[in-house]
C-alpha cells in the first residue's frame, strides 16, 4: 500500500489518452484504498492487475490469526432496554470500535444473555455484540484474543461509527 500511495503518478505534459490513463490509475488507486479499508487487518502484500482483474492479498502467518466463531448460548436472562454504560475508561487493553452507525446490543435478541461481560475470555473472530442499522444486524466480532476489561456502551445505546464499544486486554498473549 505504501508503495502505491507514495509513488507519484507521472503526468507532466499529458495527451488526452494519457490523461485517460491517469484517470484510470486514479480510479484503481481509489479502489485499492477502499479495498484496504474493508480488510480487518493490514496485509503484508497486495497485488492488483487491472485488465484481467487479479487481486492478490497476503498476510504473514502471525497476522493471520485463526478466526474462530463461538456463539454464546441464548439462555434466559433479562436485559435492561437501555442500560447506561457500565464502566468508564479501562486501565488496560485496547478498544474495539463500532464498524457502523446504529444501535448497539449486548445480546443476540431481547431477553437473551449478553454475548460477553467484563472478565469474559474471547478469541479473535468471536461475536461479542451486534449493531443494528436500518434493521440490518451487523455482528461485532473481537479483533483479538484476550479478556474483556470494559463494556463501554450500554445495551440499546446509539453509537456512531468508530466509537469504542469494548476494551479487550490481550494479556500475555
Amino acid at each position, binding site marked *: 500500500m505504501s508503495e502505491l500511495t507514495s509513488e507519484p503518478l507521472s*503526468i507532466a505534459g499529458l495527451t488526452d489518452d494519457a490523461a485517460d490513463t491517469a484517470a484510470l490509475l486514479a480510479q484503481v488507486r481509489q479502489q485499492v*484504498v477502499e479495498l484496504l479499508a474493508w480488510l480487518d487487518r493490514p496485509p503484508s502484500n497486495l497485488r492488483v492487475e487491472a485488465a484481467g482483474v487479479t487481486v492478490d492479498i497476503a498476510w504473514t502467518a502471525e497476522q493471520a490469526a485463526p478466526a474462530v466463531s463461538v456463539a454464546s448460548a441464548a439462555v434466559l436472562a433479562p436485559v435492561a432496554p437501555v442500560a447506561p454504560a457500565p464502566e468508564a475508561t479501562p486501565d488496560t487493553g485496547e478498544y474495539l470500535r463500532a464498524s*457502523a*452507525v446504529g*444501535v448497539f446490543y449486548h445480546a443476540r435478541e431481547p431477553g437473551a444473555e449478553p454475548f460477553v461481560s467484563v472478565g469474559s475470555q474471547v478469541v479473535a473472530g468471536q461475536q461479542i455484540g451486534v449493531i443494528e442499522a436500518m434493521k440490518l444486524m451487523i455482528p461485532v466480532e473481537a479483533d483479538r484474543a484476550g479478556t474483556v476489561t470494559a463494556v463501554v456502551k450500554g445495551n440499546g445505546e446509539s453509537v*456512531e461509527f468508530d466509537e469504542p464499544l469494548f476494551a479487550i486486554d490481550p494479556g500475555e498473549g
Partner: protein
Amino acid sequence: MLESVLIANRGEIAMRVARACRELGIRSVAVYSTADRDSAVTTYADEAIHIGPGPAKRSYLNIPAVIEAARQRQVSAVHPGYGFLSEDPDFAEVCENNDLIFIGPPSHVIARLGDKCAARRTMSDVGLPLLPGSTGPVASPADAREVADRIGYPVMIKAAAGGGGRGIRVAHDAPSFLAAYTAAATEAQVLFGDPRCYVERYVAAARHVEVQILCDGHGSGVHLGVRECSVQRRHQKLLEESPAPGLPASTIAAMGECAVAGALATGYVGAGTFEFLVDEHGDFYFMEVNCRIQVEHPVTELVTGIDLVQQQLRIAAGERLTIRQSDVSNRGWALECRINTEDPDRAFVPASGRIESFVLPSGPFVRVDTHGYPGYRMPAIYDSLLAKVLCWGDTREQAIARMERALTEFRATGPGVRTTAGFLRRVLADDEFRSGTYDTGLVARLTDNQEKG
C-alpha cells in the same frame, strides 16, 4: 417550518445548507466520514455524527448509515446537497418510507428524470424541443448506426444512465461510428452498470445554458432565469454566469416557460435545473433535468435576490411558493469561479494537501462559499472543489473586473497544493470570453494554445 435537517453531504455545500438552516432557526445535523473529521461543518452545524470511514461508499453513499444517523438525531428532513445520494431515487424512497422528508422531488420523479431516455420522451411529449436523434435507447449497434445515418454526422452517443459528462462519445463520420458507439456503451456499462445509449445530433459550437426552476408541492412553479455554463473542461464546469451573454430576453423567457411546463408535467417538487443546448443560430434544445441544488446556484441567487436553499427548505416544509413569475427579475450580472485544488499545468490532476495559507477575497459585491480554512487538510479522496468565488456587477464588464480583482486576492498555498485560480484569470482575460461569444470549446482552445507555447 422544519424542526431539523440532516445534511447528507460534505464540503462547501454542507456549509451552505447549515447556514440556511441557521437563518431559518432549523436545527442542523452534519454527517461526516473519518476523512472529514476536521471539516468546518462538524463544528458549525448544531450537531455532527460520524457515519463511516473515508471511502464514500461506506459513508456518504451508505444509505443505512445516513438513515441511522437521521433516526438517532430525530431529524424531520434530509438535505442531500449535490452529488452523492442527491439523485438516487432509492435513497429518496427510503427517506419517504422512514418518515423523513427528502429535500428534493419525489422518488418516482427522480427515477423518471434520471433515465435520460425516459426524460427525453417525457419532455418531447410536453412539447420541448429536442435535438434530432433517437427518442429512446437504441436496441443494437445497427439500429444506432441507422439513426446516425438518418440524422447526419457528426453525432453524439450518450449513456442513458449517464451524467457528469461521462459515457459520451462523438462520431464524426460513418466509418468511425461503430468504434465510438462501442466505447460509449462499454463506458456506460462500466460506470453505470447499464449499457443503453441514445444517439443525437452533435453540435460543435454548442453552448450549455440551464434554467433554474422552483416548484412547490401544490402545483405552482416559477423559473429564475438562466445560467451560462459553457466554460467547461471535459464536461466539468469551471465558471458560470447569469444571465447568458448575448441570449435575447425572448429566448430566455421561452426556455423558462418550457422548463416550468416540463417540471409541472412530471410532478416536480423543489429546486431543479433544466439543461439546454443552444446552437450557433440561438435555437435551444432540451438536454436533461438535474433533480438537485447545483454547485452554481449562487449566481442565480445574486441576480434574483432569491435564496434557493431557503426556498428548498420552505417547499420541503409544505409551504406554498410566494414568488410569482411576475415578481422574478434579473438585476445586473453575476459570475462564479470554481476554485479546485487541481494543477492546470499538469492536465488538471488533483493537487490536494494541507492548506497552510488561505486568504479569501472580500470587499464590495464578493461572495465566497467554501469549507476551507487555514490549516485545513483537503482530503484527496473527494471532489477537488475548494471554494466558489462569486462577484456581482451592474454590467457584465463590471462583474468581470470585480472577479479579476477578487481572484488576485485569493490565496491557497501549502505543500503539493495547486489551484485553478490562475487558470480562471486566463479565462477572464481571454478575448473570446470577454466578448461573450464563447461556446463549450473555449477551455480546450485555451489549453491547446498553452501547449503550443
